[in-house]
């Protein structure tokens, strides 16, 4: 017993001694606080409802923490998936919503037009000044546009605080380098992974082994390229439909691997010419296998595809017409003298010379029938596209999956319904996912102009086959016969699948898993700065944040991007608006608790 009491005495002694130099929280706070808190201001916390998805739980937690530390009372509204998140957002049940935007076309106009312009597809705001600046920047050269976009950011973020920027993400993918050829797997800033380039390390497996990829969303919006623009179909549609033009890994325009051999911009920046290839046929599915339909991809298909892309009323649920609203006319050129007499923008050569560059046989004649076209005889098809105003960024939109070329004949034969009287229960549009889902509704009518065609899908996976009539004999001919896309919802499971060899490539590895991937000797991690920006979107209706700039700015200056970067181990990049990844305006958001206090006080005073 004695020893026990001695111990107690010793313990109390330790505490008493320690008590002399223990720093309590109050002491610590007093040291950090230079100025005493103003007791005259209203001390009640302002409640902010933060809407987010469970998949972004970390971001939500960081923002909650930062807002709480700046005197807000944060109410969380966490939704399990995008569907319920969108439903909450549409119902207006939020003050700030954690949103993200990826500029898949790689041009700044797309990064702002549909988000912030009055009446844009995803826009919930209306500000004349912002509208004016967006339109002004669109017509300018990239160098001139920098200043305009800076002005736009000043208005959008600094002055009005319609959004509070968080960060730019890295785009990442990890693949099994024991199975896949390292040099064949590309990671591009905006463009989706071109499947046709991917090859096995052991090339003898091309015909026998499938390439196995993964995707988190198993519900495919639509396989009609103009009817969807989201994560569920962007990669798939990019590989199922060829385009007039492509983007390089760093978002430059190129004809490489596209339907055109070459392209040219005519003087005045309103006319664009494309010289088409003759070695792409549509593929179709017969008995769940891909066969060459024998129909060539030609000028009539291009004209049809472009016209339906820009026309809001060409299909019900047209999701991408705003991307193509600058297209004025699309036509096939049959008069060779037009090409000879038109000069290229910013150069002395004619359009004909520009289009012929690098071709073995020069243009001898232009044909209107696509079946007459023959590269080796010098008979070509040329497309002329005009824009409503001088707008060089239109080429970026043409590289987007929604500008994929579909078969005029096939689509017209499937979409026989009247758009105005479209009935979801009765009419089956081209590209409806039910027509490719295993079951009694299965009736695959797809005509794919791209390197692969979807044979069928279920909840577990989607099976694609190589298009047998796609650029045969060239370097762009698809290497691997079959592609499987596994639908795995959870990031951890996807990574496990990659590590166990169940899948070959994992696109979009979370930042927290980089170390795990790097530590695995058979995996290779690729990262590149992406065009994806995360930001807080303020509600513009029925909430205090909608009417009070002060409140919005208080939230804006509560955001500390340095802390976010620290959390992500510097695997994120600072942003100021959605154009930040594309245009370096030099703006930077610096957290400022003093300003937060000031704006909060102003907000409370105005109430």
């Amino acid at each position, binding site marked *: 017993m004695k020893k026990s009491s001695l111990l107690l005495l010793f313990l109390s002694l330790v505490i008493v001694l320690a008590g002399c130099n223990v720093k309590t929280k109050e002491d610590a706070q007093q040291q950090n606080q230079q100025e005493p808190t103003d007791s005259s201001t209203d001390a009640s916390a302002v409640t902010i409802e933060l809407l987010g998805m469970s998949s972004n739980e970390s971001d939500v937690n960081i923002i909650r923490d930062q807002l709480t530390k700046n005197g807000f009372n944060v109410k969380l509204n966490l939704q399990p998936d995008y569907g319920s998140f969108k439903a909450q957002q549409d119902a207006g049940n939020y003050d700030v919503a954690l949103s993200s935007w990826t500029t898949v076309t790689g041009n700044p106009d797309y990064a702002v037009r549909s988000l912030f312009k009055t009446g844009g597809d995803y826009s919930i705001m209306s500000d004349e000044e912002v509208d004016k600046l967006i339109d002004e920047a669109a017509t300018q050269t990239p160098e001139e546009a920098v200043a305009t976009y800076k002005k736009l950011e000043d208005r959008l973020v600094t002055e009005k605080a319609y959004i509070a920027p968080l960060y730019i993400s890295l785009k990442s993918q990890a693949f099994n380098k024991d199975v896949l050829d390292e040099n064949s797997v590309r990671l591009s800033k905006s463009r989706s992974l071109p499947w046709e380039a991917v090859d096995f390390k052991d090339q003898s497996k091309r015909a026998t082994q499938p390439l196995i990829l993964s995707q988190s969303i198993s519900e495919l919006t639509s396989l009609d390229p103009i009817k969807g623009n989201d994560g569920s179909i962007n990669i798939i549609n990019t590989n199922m439909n060829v385009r007039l033009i492509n983007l390089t890994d760093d978002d430059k325009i190129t004809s490489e691997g596209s339907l055109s051999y070459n392209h040219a911009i005519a003087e005045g920046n309103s006319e664009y010419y494309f010289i088409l290839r003759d070695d792409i046929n549509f593929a179709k599915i017969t008995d769940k296998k891909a066969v060459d339909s024998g129909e060539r991809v030609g000028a009539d298909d291009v004209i049809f595809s472009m016209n339906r892309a820009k026309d809001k009323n060409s299909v019900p649920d047209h999701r991408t017409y705003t991307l193509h609203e600058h297209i004025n006319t699309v036509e096939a050129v049959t008069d060779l003298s037009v090409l000879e007499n038109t000069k290229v923008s910013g150069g002395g050569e004619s359009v004909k010379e520009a289009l012929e560059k690098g071709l073995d046989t020069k243009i001898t004649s232009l044909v209107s029938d696509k079946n007459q076209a023959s590269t080796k005889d010098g008979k070509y098809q040329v497309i002329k596209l005009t824009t409503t105003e001088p707008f060089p960024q239109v080429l970026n939109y043409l590289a987007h999956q929604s500008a994929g070329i579909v078969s005029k004949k096939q689509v017209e034969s499937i979409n026989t319904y009247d758009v105005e009287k479209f009935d979801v229960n009765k009419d089956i549009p081209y590209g409806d996912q039910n027509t490719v889902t295993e079951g009694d509704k299965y009736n695959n009518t797809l005509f794919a102009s791209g390197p692969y065609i979807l044979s069928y899908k279920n909840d577990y996976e989607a099976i694609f086959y190589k298009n047998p009539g796609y650029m045969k004999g060239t370097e762009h001919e698809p290497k691997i016969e079959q592609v499987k896309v596994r639908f795995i919802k959870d990031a951890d499971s996807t990574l496990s699948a990659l590590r166990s060899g169940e899948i070959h490539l994992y696109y979009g590895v979370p930042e927290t898993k980089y170390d*795990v991937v790097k530590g695995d000797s058979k995996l290779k991690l690729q990262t590149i700065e992406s065009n994806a920006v995360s930001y807080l979107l303020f509600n513009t209706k029925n909430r205090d944040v909608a009417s009070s700039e002060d409140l919005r700015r208080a939230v804006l200056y509560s955001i500390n991007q340095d802390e976010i970067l620290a959390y992500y181990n510097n695997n994120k990049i600072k942003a100021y608006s959605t154009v930040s990844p594309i245009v370096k305006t030099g703006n930077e958001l610096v957290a400022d608790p003093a300003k937060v206090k000031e704006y909060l006080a102003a907000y409370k005073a105005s109430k």
Partner: protein
Amino acid sequence: MIKKLQSKQGTAHQLKSSPEYRQASFTWVISLTLSVILLLNSFDFAGGALKPWVFTAFAAYALFTIVQMIITLLIRRDLLRTGDIRRSTRLLGYIQLLSIITGNLFTVTFGFNLVKQQKPPEYTIAVYMLLTQLYVIAISALNLFKPYVSNTFLPAMFILVVVAILQLIALLLVAKFVTSHYAHPKLVWLALPIIVTAATGNIFALVLGINLLAKIRKNGNPAMTRWSDVWIKLTANSTAMAGLFFVIFLFCLSVCSVFTFDYSVAIDNNYSAILLPPSLEYPFGTDNFGRDLFSRIVFGARISLIVGFASTLIPVIIGGILGAISGYYGRQTDNIIMRLLDVLYAIPGILLAIAIIAAFGANTVNLILALSVGAIPTYARTMRANVMLVSTYEYVDAARAFGSSNFSIIFKHIVPNSLAPMIVKSTLTIGAAVISTSSLSYLGLGVEPHIPEWGNILKIGSTYLETNSYLAIYPGLAIIALVLSFNFLGDGLRDALDPKLD
């Protein structure tokens, strides 16, 4: 030959019938296991280096394990020679008391058990009461290594130490003046302040106080009450007491942490301290937001206990009342109530909980309700069976003959006599409730993600299983320990309450 066999059996019986020897063997095995775990952890296998602190802890544990082994052998020799443990061997127990510095609960309680030959339940309870208090003080004192402590830390610690001293005095007095059948009447003046110290959450203090008062009241009366009988059996069961100790320790810590722990360390992000390995400042390391895992687990205990108890108490009361009514009245009443409950019984509990939370939103109150609803039918069935049995007894008939109302018969005579199986069952299901809470939080259906709850903490840990495994190990161990404790306690209570074992 027969004689040899007899003597062998006799030896085994002699050893088995000594509680000290049983506990001694159990203790050295556990102690050795802990030592080996510490030894394995003291080597950094990747770097090939030795971690000095862990190795020191191992050395201390190993030392007391060796002492424990020696004591076990000595007890064995004493028992075989004289049939009793010698005084000199008992004195060795004082060495094991020193192991309180290492925090090894098993050797310490063994030491306390060995040094005293006659152990009334009050003595054992007083020992656990003091240990609980000391553990809470030690755990709270770890906050001293933090850059700053909460504002109430110093006064709270002072009060805790004063309480601990008071409880030490109580232990000494109980050891001296309380025997199996007698307690000194003046101990009333000790019992009252001890009950007051239960305000720190130390339920042992409350139990000790009540036990003392009860014992003093019936000094000289040889009759045994159910209450004291249960405690005699329970205190003799060292696994059940270890379980009870851990539950009460966590409860006490949850109460004291309000004053001794700083909530902001557990909930505010600290970006300069992300994913730090365990150290003195952060005993369990920090998570991916730089929050102190140790504080989070301490604060998480509160939610686990509240949800565990509340979601067991609600179905016990509702199910108990429904079961009692249907068991007592029988016929149509029974049929209607039980068939309706059968419908509820047909829905899987966790599925029902998920559905309720999905419909009404995730927060603590909904979580408790969701877990409660599904458990009602099982309690109703248990209660109904007991009531049906008890209502046939003579004293019920007697009460009826005296003209008592049905209400008073049910709640005065039948229910109190049907409670024992309910108590055992509820103790065993609290563990399940704790697991359900954590599972739902793990699935993102429990409390908000930043709130420290063991399931939430484990969820974060699971994503860092390979790189920072401690993030998952500690909350996992906490859940295991709490559930295991409830199960041990439940088993002990069943043994103590079972009239067949009398």
